[in-house]
């Protein structure tokens, strides 16, 4: 099936954007899969201590209280590092794993990608120094998650396309801002 969206005016420019059954649709699905695996793998390896004898449990405490010093997110990261590091150490591996899995399955993609972008915001602004410039790998990762949200990437070859067809979502269209 090839579905052609109507031509829309975007800030003064007419745009017709065809996604389904096209290279654009294929590319959106591929980006979703790769972005999902990136976070899934990042989360999984933080649980290395569960199967590698001698591996240290994941700890973000040093990053929170040290590496982020002097950055614009330091008031938040340092507070957490000093008062609730256990929470961050618990949440980051689990969130990365869950976000990655959701993106790979195309399930609740916008909701998952929002939290991916949320985490990447702290990784981007918290990595002090800017030695690699302001447009670096962290910003690219952040923008990938925003791209998943903007395009509703779960609707192309993802489980969200089935969920959105259900009567429940049709009668609660607001959910499309969490799915898709």
């Amino acid at each position, binding site marked *: 099936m090839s579905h052609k*969206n109507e031509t*829309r005016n975007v800030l003064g420019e007419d745009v017709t954007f065809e*996604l*389904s059954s096209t290279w654009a*649709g294929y590319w959106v699905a591929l980006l979703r899969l790769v972005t999902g695996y990136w976070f899934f793998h990042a989360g999984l390896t933080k649980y290395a201590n569960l199967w590698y004898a001698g591996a240290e449990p994941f700890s973000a405490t040093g990053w929170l209280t040290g590496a982020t010093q002097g950055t614009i997110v330091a008031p938040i990261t340092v507070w957490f590092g000093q008062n609730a590091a256990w929470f961050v150490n618990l949440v980051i591996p689990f969130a990365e794993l869950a976000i990655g899995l959701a993106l790979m399955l195309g399930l609740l993609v916008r909701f998952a990608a929002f939290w991916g972008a949320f985490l990447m915001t702290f990784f981007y602004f918290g990595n002090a120094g800017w030695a690699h410039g302001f*447009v670096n790998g962290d910003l690219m990762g952040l923008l990938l998650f925003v791209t998943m949200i903007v*395009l509703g990437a779960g*609707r192309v070859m993802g489980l969200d396309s089935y969920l959105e067809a259900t009567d429940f979502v049709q009668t609660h269209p607001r959910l*499309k801002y969490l799915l898709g």
Partner: protein
Amino acid sequence: MTDLTTVDRLAMLLGGALVVLGTVVLGILEALLGNPSPVPVTNEAGAVVATTTFPVEVRAYLIAFGMLVWLIAGVYKLIAGVPRERGTAAPRGTAAE
């Protein structure tokens, strides 16, 4: 036709402008003014040979505020809900709504 709301336009223009200003515009200006690196450049002896014109904090805040505008627009759209005419079923595989 267009289905952009005022919030959409504001998010696109203001959010995009702030992010592009913090990354691309000030980056190019920084390079033209003599230092392509966003941080001070030192030689082997550790002496600073090139400083930055725009503080990194200023560029970081510009980018962060741009993203904040996008976030607020996204949350507003979630709370405001889907416009009635767009709440109908789209063909499976249709993205970008």
